[in-house]
């Protein structure tokens, strides 16, 4: 039984990772999966707490996260050791690629270990000030974002290249496997490099990220101080220090292997492989006391809090965030997004909406929305436009930064307004007939004048960007969508277009949310 535990754990970790991968792959067109595709994010209590602080209200979708905290009270931060897909990835790479260096003298990580508490306090204060940038360090958000932005497009590229090759070996035209439209994301290299750095830190210490940086792990640590499932060591201990070496998170102090820091233990049960079989886990009364805890001095706590507060103020005082007239009017938020200030404080930058968008219209920001808006989604119409009968991004947003709207409501939401650059427009600038924008517009917001030149009807334009996307002018489009500030509802269009509705027509099948 004891021997089987490491294998069992590794299997569960692998399954958990591939389950996340499966959910990400299923975050696509029909979106008919029974389980929420953002399940992992909804189970993330760090996101749950911070969004509660920033939004000042409980987000219903995030409620399951608090259930996870209750389980942590029993089993300690089992999540890190058994289910966390980020932890699984780190464990995997720690084994095969970034093996821990053997240091000539043991290195005292006492001061390093309080780093993540500092980050956590920073996040809390910043969250209270309705600003959040620490989502970039949330492990679930991080791995989802990395898989979607950095790894999904290359995977599709390989698929699309290999499929036609494989088809050549088959009898001609027996089967045409459709290629998958390859999404393109602007910040992919940066996100990939950050991920590699996180993994490579394993060279310094096994699970470096989990030990010293992860804010979700910190939250679990604080709660799992009161854990009920506890480690006990009998007098048989021979101080062989095998458990100290094996422990992936360094929760067992070298000087005293009979004790352990219950808050750091990820319940991987590796220490059960004890030669004299002195170690056992069973339920016991919770206690706050621990050994070799981190030294959170008053100076350190106050320093972290102050640093968080000042940083939050600094980023808030950025001209992009304030009403300074320097607003980025090309920053179009997805349909149904909360007002900008609220949006950047609630959006975790997980990238789910980027994945689900059928037209690859949503892109991650870098600094277009200021530092507060790092990795938040924006609509880039030249790459893709917002599909008329699609409300997927709102349906999968774990923190409801993009509100889940029914299709009819989403269709009439104005994200921006298109404007024509008449010096570059084919119809205005030359004598050719174009009007691609007119024929593509889903909302009849672009009409042609008597010389067949496009004119925009602002009151009908939703800023979906299909005109900017399809404009045949090279490079930048001759029709450009500018954000309209706060998204507002448009008047529903006249439905009396078809007054003489003919009974012979098939029943209207309207797909609602």
């Amino acid at each position: 039984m004891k021997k089987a535990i490491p294998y069992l754990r590794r299997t569960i970790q692998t399954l958990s990772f591939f389950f996340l991968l499966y959910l990400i792959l299923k975050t696509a067109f029909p979106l008919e999966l029974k389980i929420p595709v953002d399940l992992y994010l909804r189970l993330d209590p760090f996101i749950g707490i911070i969004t509660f602080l920033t939004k000042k209200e409980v987000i219903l979708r995030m409620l399951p996260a608090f259930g996870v905290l209750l389980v942590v009270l029993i089993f300690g931060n089992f999540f890190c050791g058994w289910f966390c897909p980020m932890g699984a990835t780190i464990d995997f790479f720690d084994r095969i690629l970034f093996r821990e260096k053997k240091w000539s003298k043991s290195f005292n990580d006492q001061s390093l270990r309080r780093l993540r508490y500092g980050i956590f306090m920073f996040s809390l204060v910043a969250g209270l000030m309705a600003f959040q940038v620490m989502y970039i360090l949330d492990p679930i958000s991080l791995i989802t974002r990395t898989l979607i932005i950095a790894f999904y497009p290359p995977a599709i590229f390989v698929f699309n290249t290999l499929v036609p090759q494989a088809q050549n070996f088959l009898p001609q035209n027996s089967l045409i496997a459709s290629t998958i439209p390859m999404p393109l994301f602007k910040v992919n290299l940066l996100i990939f490099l950050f991920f590699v750095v996180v993994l490579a830190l394993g060279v310094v210490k096994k699970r470096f990220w989990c030990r010293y940086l992860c804010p979700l792990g910190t939250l679990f640590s604080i709660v799992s101080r009161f854990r009920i499932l506890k480690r006990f060591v009998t007098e048989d201990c021979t101080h062989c220090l095998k458990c100290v070496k094996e422990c992936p998170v360094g929760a067992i102090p070298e000087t005293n292997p009979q004790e352990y820091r219950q808050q750091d233990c990820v319940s991987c049960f590796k220490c059960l492989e004890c030669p004299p079989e002195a170690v056992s886990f069973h339920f016991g009364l919770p206690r706050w006391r621990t050994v070799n805890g981190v030294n959170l001095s008053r100076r350190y706590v106050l320093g972290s809090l102050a640093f968080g507060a000042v940083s939050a103020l600094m980023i808030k005082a950025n001209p992009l965030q304030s009403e300074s007239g320097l607003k980025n009017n090309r920053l179009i938020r997805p349909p149904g997004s909360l007002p900008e200030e609220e949006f950047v404080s609630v959006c975790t930058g997980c990238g789910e909406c980027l994945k689900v968008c059928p037209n690859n219209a949503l892109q991650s920001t870098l600094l277009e929305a200021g530092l507060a808006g790092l990795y938040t989604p924006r609509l880039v119409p030249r790459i893709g436009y917002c599909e008329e009968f699609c409300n997927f991004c709102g349906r999968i947003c774990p923190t409801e930064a993009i509100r889940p709207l029914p299709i009819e409501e989403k269709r009439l939401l104005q994200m921006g307004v298109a404007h024509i650059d008449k010096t570059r427009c084919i119809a205005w600038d030359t004598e050719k007939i174009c009007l691609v924008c007119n024929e593509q517009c889903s909302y009849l917001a672009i009409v042609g004048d008597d010389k067949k030149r496009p004119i925009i009807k602002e009151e009908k334009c939703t800023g979906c960007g299909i005109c900017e996307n399809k404009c045949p002018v090279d490079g930048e489009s001759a029709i450009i969508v500018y954000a309209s500030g706060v998204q507002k509802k448009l008047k529903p269009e006249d439905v009396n277009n078809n007054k003489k509705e003919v009974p012979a027509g098939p029943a209207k099948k309207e797909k609602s949310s």
Partner: protein
Amino acid sequence: MDYASKKKMTRRQFIKGAAAAVTLPHLLSGETCFYGSLAHAAEESDLVIAKNGSASQLLQAAMAPLGGMGRFVKKGQRVVIKANIAWARTPDQACTNNPDLLAALIKMCYEAGAKRVAVWDHTCDNYQFCFSRSGLKETAQKAGADIFSGHGRNSYKQVEVQKGKKLKTVEILRDVLESDVFINFPIPKQHFATELTLGMKNLMGIVWDMEQLHKIGLHQCIADINTIRKTDLVVMDAIRILTTNGPKGPGKTEDIGEVIASTDIVAADAYAAAFFKHPKTGKPFKPEEIQFVKNAYDLGLGQINLSKVRVKKVTAA
């Protein structure tokens, strides 16, 4: 040119098939006598207009005077249907093809012995939404056809447009070029830029970067594209047409209740133009008023003057 060699093949097959098509109705006269003497003389017309009836009846009636589907589709051939699934609209909005008619067309191809029927379109809206909202994916797959979207560039092949006046090279769906039988299945719609969307303009959807054609000169490009691969058969879906706000709609629709089958795409377009009223004069469009129809006629793609075409009007039910 592998296409040219294929064309030779089809001519021989055509003669064989034509012979069969002439004799077959005689053998099956018990079934086809419904259409009277018209059905006996196969290929007696170039343009057939069928009225009154359900979608499949209309198609049957329209095909019979042309010589039946057997004239075009031989046993074991691969058929490509270029449907109009360009927009994420419902069938009743008349922006996409009638699903019943598509199903009937696919069935007819299989009954004539087709090995594989593929329905293609390079959609303008997202293909998944177009396919599901128009109901055409479900219909096509139920009828046993494959339905494909041209969203991937690897489905295309660069060809030179030898007869093209303005368009020199263009990327065309490879399946269209390699198919044995190519059926154009358009739906006539009003279109602000080109006045009307008819059969020839439907072939915009076999081109990779169709928006670029607007830059070169839309009307001439539409005609030029039609020189690349001759449409073997045009089946025009005029059961319900869109008369305003085209081509995407939603706009006013009109129930014409006709299916037009033809071997001459210019003639079919010339006929269908009259469904629509000219915005200025208020009179039905003359074929010459549609620039691309005129251009195609000048290229020798077909007959614009309907009096020079053998037109047959039949009633289906």
